[in-house]
């Protein structure tokens, strides 16, 4: 294990590498100087392995994907060498292929799945033409190929006829992503590169797809390079993992090694910053600082500006790959000051033995001690969630929703004037009270109605039935009657605010930050004069970490990062002095390591401004983090119904509704202790049923692993789910005397 630092291509030390990447570098000439967005990366991909590459946005991980197919977009220049070794036949020098050879090579040998499945299909052509045109472009037999396509689609748990006959927009996000996987495999490639294939999907779908990838890999004999920002997600799947930072690998090794003995400070910090269900929330810490700009990567170790272990040597000498599994340090021929010339740069040639674990850090031995994973919370650890006390929920509720329904009608087809429109029951009979200083996090899959419900709660969506009351007043009555003197619709509008998922769209692009923030202040605090307003804004900006605030005040939204825009949007909402803020997926657009920081900020502002929050999220770890820190509740929404609600203690550790249990299963966890978590998928169907035609009885019965005959007929009402306070679930299993227990199971005959 100490041998093989060989870089020679003709020396296949690996058992059976299918792709060998050597010193791959991608450069862009930019006005500010040359930028290197992939810096001398080398990698052996073993045949039939799943190799995970983890990095935050801007770490160069997508460049690596493009490089594998020699598809770096102009004007980027790719250097180095990439060798593809087919099972039979001679090795292929990918970068030496002609345009035509490359056209054949891509998709037939190495195919790729992008993150942008939503937009990877031609919107005006049906799915089947995508398959047909790919087959004919490569001179494959179309009939045979379409047979294979049908097989692939049904292997991915979809109905081939329906999918092939659809336009892309008619499929849900999860179906589009799976269809794209089928499309990538249509020419039977050996290698599949997946670049963030699940990032835009909700967790349950992510997990379902990840389990499918494992099945597909076995069945079609694939080698997979899986690129993601989500370490826990890939940890469940990959044989080996490489962590990327600043356009190069900083640590590489077998998955278990990386999880249990992460040795690079960045890997350790990344693991700690990821919201998850297992570690105590105090252990989740954001990484200070931000990732380097490609034009201006720090000298020496590129992580030294953010690294708690950094010293002189780190600034001066670029660390090479130190072998971790064996403590003998390999310092073969390291030129110091090696940053200037790429050739003399010490590089991380991974040992081709898959058992090897390397970290590019001078002090990898000290990292575990300096950056402990669980710190002193070790003992109480995992099961002892103890959330903040939370508000007393005895006084009158702030906003109360009574049996709220929102039904949308969809249009019919072309020239279809008179047929009954389909009705989407986006929200169907939810009751919920939100109190002063209360926090409720709604979780559920895309299309389950949680966003519509949230909008209804803050008066942005009128319910088709039921009532939304603000301090006892029905707000839609108030709007129609124009108010009764004590309260007007305007007051309600101000009291209920929203912070959007996409902060960019919420801010006026033509207004400077200062101006955007002044408007609400002028309106609601007319007693302040210009100077007071300015100092208020400055202090708030500084407070949320945007300093020097004077500098930020004069910027336009596009001059801010996503996180900064989100903060400005948040401050603006806060300046209205609202009683309740609806935050729709406020952190899902941010990098994993920034999420905790943003959530902390929101929680802090809540205390300062004395508001309540209604969060909408598809991510149970984020939900748990917020609810636990604020003493809030988590509400689980499925197909327009609230199926379970309770404090995080119960929802995370004692979920009663089978759907909550499925969400729990879908939430990836970094497993420091070793041993897989995973387990069988607890859902019988991957896709959410059509919301225009929800299943009878319990709406979850089509996917529920516990469903029995009675569930298809009767509709369960919310019921006390455990002895804990505020814990309710809508499932017959919470009632020990229900006829459910005598009803025959319906799951055996199913799939």
């Amino acid at each position, binding site marked *: 294990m100490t041998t093989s630092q060989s870089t020679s291509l003709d020396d296949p030390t690996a058992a059976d590498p299918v792709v060998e990447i050597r010193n791959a570098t991608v450069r862009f000439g930019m006005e500010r100087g040359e930028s290197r967005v992939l810096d001398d990366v080398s990698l052996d991909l073993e045949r039939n392995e799943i190799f995970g590459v983890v990095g935050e946005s801007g770490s160069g991980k997508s460049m690596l994907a493009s490089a594998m197919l020699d598809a770096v977009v102009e004007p980027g220049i790719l250097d180095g060498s990439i060798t593809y070794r087919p099972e039979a036949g001679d090795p292929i020098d990918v970068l030496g292929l002609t345009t035509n050879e490359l*056209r054949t090579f891509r998709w037939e040998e190495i195919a790729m799945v992008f993150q942008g499945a939503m937009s990877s299909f031609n919107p005006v052509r049906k799915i089947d033409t995508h398959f047909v045109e790919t087959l004919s472009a490569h001179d494959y037999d179309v009939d045979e190929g379409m047979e294979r396509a049908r097989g692939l689609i049904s292997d991915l748990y979809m109905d081939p006829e329906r999918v092939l006959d659809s336009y892309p927009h008619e499929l849900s996000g999860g179906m589009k992503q799976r269809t794209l996987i089928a499309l990538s495999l249509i020419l039977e490639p050996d290698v599949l590169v997946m670049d963030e294939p699940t990032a835009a999907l909700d967790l349950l779908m992510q997990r379902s797809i990840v389990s499918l990838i494992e099945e597909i890999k076995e069945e079609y004999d694939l080698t997979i390079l899986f690129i993601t920002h989500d370490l826990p997600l890939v940890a469940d799947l990959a044989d080996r993992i490489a962590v990327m930072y600043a356009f190069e690998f900083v640590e590489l090794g077998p998955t278990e090694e990386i999880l249990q003995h992460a040795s690079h400070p960045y890997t350790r910090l990344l693991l700690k910053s990821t919201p998850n269900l297992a570690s105590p929330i105090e252990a989740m810490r954001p990484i200070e600082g931000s990732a380097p700009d490609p034009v201006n990567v720090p000298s020496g170790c590129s992580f030294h500006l953010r690294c708690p272990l950094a010293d002189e040597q780190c600034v001066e000498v670029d660390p090479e790959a130190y072998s971790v599994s064996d403590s003998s340090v390999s310092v073969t021929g390291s030129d110091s000051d090696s940053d200037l010339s790429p050739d003399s740069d010490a590089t991380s040639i991974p040992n081709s033995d898959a058992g090897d674990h390397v970290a590019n850090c001078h002090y990898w031995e000290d990292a575990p001690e300096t950056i402990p994973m669980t710190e002193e919370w070790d003992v109480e650890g995992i099961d002892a969630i103890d959330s903040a006390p939370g508000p007393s929920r005895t006084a009158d509720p702030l906003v109360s929703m009574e049996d709220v329904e929102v039904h949308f009608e969809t249009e019919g087809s072309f020239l279809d004037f*008179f047929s009954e429109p389909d009705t989407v029951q986006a929200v169907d009979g939810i009751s919920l009270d939100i109190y002063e200083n209360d926090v409720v996090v709604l979780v559920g899959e895309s299309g389950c109605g949680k966003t519509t419900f949230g909008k209804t709660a803050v008066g942005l969506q009128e319910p088709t039935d039921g009532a939304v009351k603000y301090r006892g007043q029905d707000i839609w009555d108030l709007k129609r009657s124009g108010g009764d003197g004590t309260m007007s619709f305007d007051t309600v509008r101000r009291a209920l605010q929203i912070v959007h998922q996409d902060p960019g769209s919420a801010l006026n692009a033509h207004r400077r930050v200062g101006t955007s923030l002044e408007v609400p202040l002028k309106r609601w605090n007319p007693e302040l004069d210009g100077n007071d307003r300015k100092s208020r804004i400055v202090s708030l900006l500084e407070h949320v970490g945007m300093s020097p605030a004077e500098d930020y005040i004069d910027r336009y939204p596009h001059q801010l990062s996503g996180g900064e825009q989100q903060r400005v949007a948040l401050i603006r909402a806060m300046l209205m002095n609202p009683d309740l803020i609806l935050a729709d997926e406020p952190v899902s657009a941010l990098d994993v390591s920034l999420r905790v920081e943003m959530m902390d900020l929101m929680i802090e502002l809540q205390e300062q401004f004395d508001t309540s929050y209604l969060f909408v999220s598809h991510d149970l770890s984020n939900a748990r983090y917020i609810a636990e820190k604020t003493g809030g509740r988590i509400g689980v929404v499925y197909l327009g119904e609230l199926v379970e609600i309770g404090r995080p203690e119960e929802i995370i550790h004692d979920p009663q509704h089978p759907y909550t249990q499925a969400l729990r299963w879908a939430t990836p966890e970094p497993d420091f202790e070793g041993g897989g978590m995973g387990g069988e998928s607890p859902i019988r169907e991957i896709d959410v049923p059509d919301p225009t035609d929800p299943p009878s009885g319990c709406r979850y019965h089509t996917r529920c692993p516990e469903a029995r005959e009675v569930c298809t007929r009767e509709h369960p009402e919310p019921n006390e789910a455990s002895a804990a306070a505020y814990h309710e679930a809508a499932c017959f299993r919470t009632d020990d005397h229900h006829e459910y227990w005598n009803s025959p199971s319906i799951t055996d005959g199913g799939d």
Partner: protein
Amino acid sequence: MVTIGWRLRRLAQALFTVWAVITLSFAMIRLMPGNAMGAMMVRFEQQGMSPARARELVELRLSLDPDKPIHTAYVEYVLNTLQGDLGTSVFHNEPVVDLLAAALPWTLFVLSWSIFISFFIGIAAGALMAYWEGGKLDVGLTSWAVLMGSIPFYVLAILLLIFASYRWGIFPSGGRQPTGVEAGFNITYIRGILYHATLPVLSMLVASGVASLGMRGNSIRVLGSDYLRVARLRGLSDYTISTQYVARNAVLPMYTTLLISIGEMFGGSIVLEYVFNYRGLGLLLYEAFNQRDYPLMMGGFVLITIAVVIALLIADMTYSWVDPRAGGQNSDSY
């Protein structure tokens, strides 16, 4: 989310517009101070007719009876209009419908050529601009398009008239058909018609400026799209990519622009035909205006409105057929 039968609502909206226009024209004729009816009565009486005779004539001309109570008169007027009876022209002393029907084909002839050529040029130029984005051709064509887009068509019409007709004498300065040639399906006549229509059609080509800029933007967007990148990686031929991917997706949004510009061009034809003394619907209306020929004016007004409403209705209704995305959506967004 689109709600209940928007097609039905759209249709109702169109019908409402037509009804509103008919009502408005009734009101102008009947109720406005110094209204058409009063004006006509005065004119006939000035010509020495007895009030009774004048009244009779007015009734015939306007196809409404001044003595009837207003609501009955209104209902009758609407019914007559819907049946195509728009009264009789005062000046020409012919049914308005016949006059309009005779003039309309000439206008449609100029308009359809204008639209066809503008969009053809616009789409082609836009595609070229996008393909060489940032290059010399792009910069040149963009400036040309911006220039075209900002000149009003009548300014171009007058310039063309001055140069191509008066100065250089290449094209006739007015008229719609050659003189001294028998109307019919013969080469000389058809050539004469095209010859006379050239300058009006050229003036309307300013529309191609807007179209080409629109096309340029669409194409650039499509060229940068994810699906194009995936299509390239899948090894599709350049031909498939340019026709099935770029062209289709870039031209689609032009469809609505096209139908909307039909409406605009109809409006523009009044001035255009006046400038070129081209005897089409526009000139007819212009003259009716000068001669205070109310029945003709109102008839033309109603006709143009209905034409525009129908064009827009077709645009809306067929868009979902041209672009599958305009139909239903999936439910991920709730």
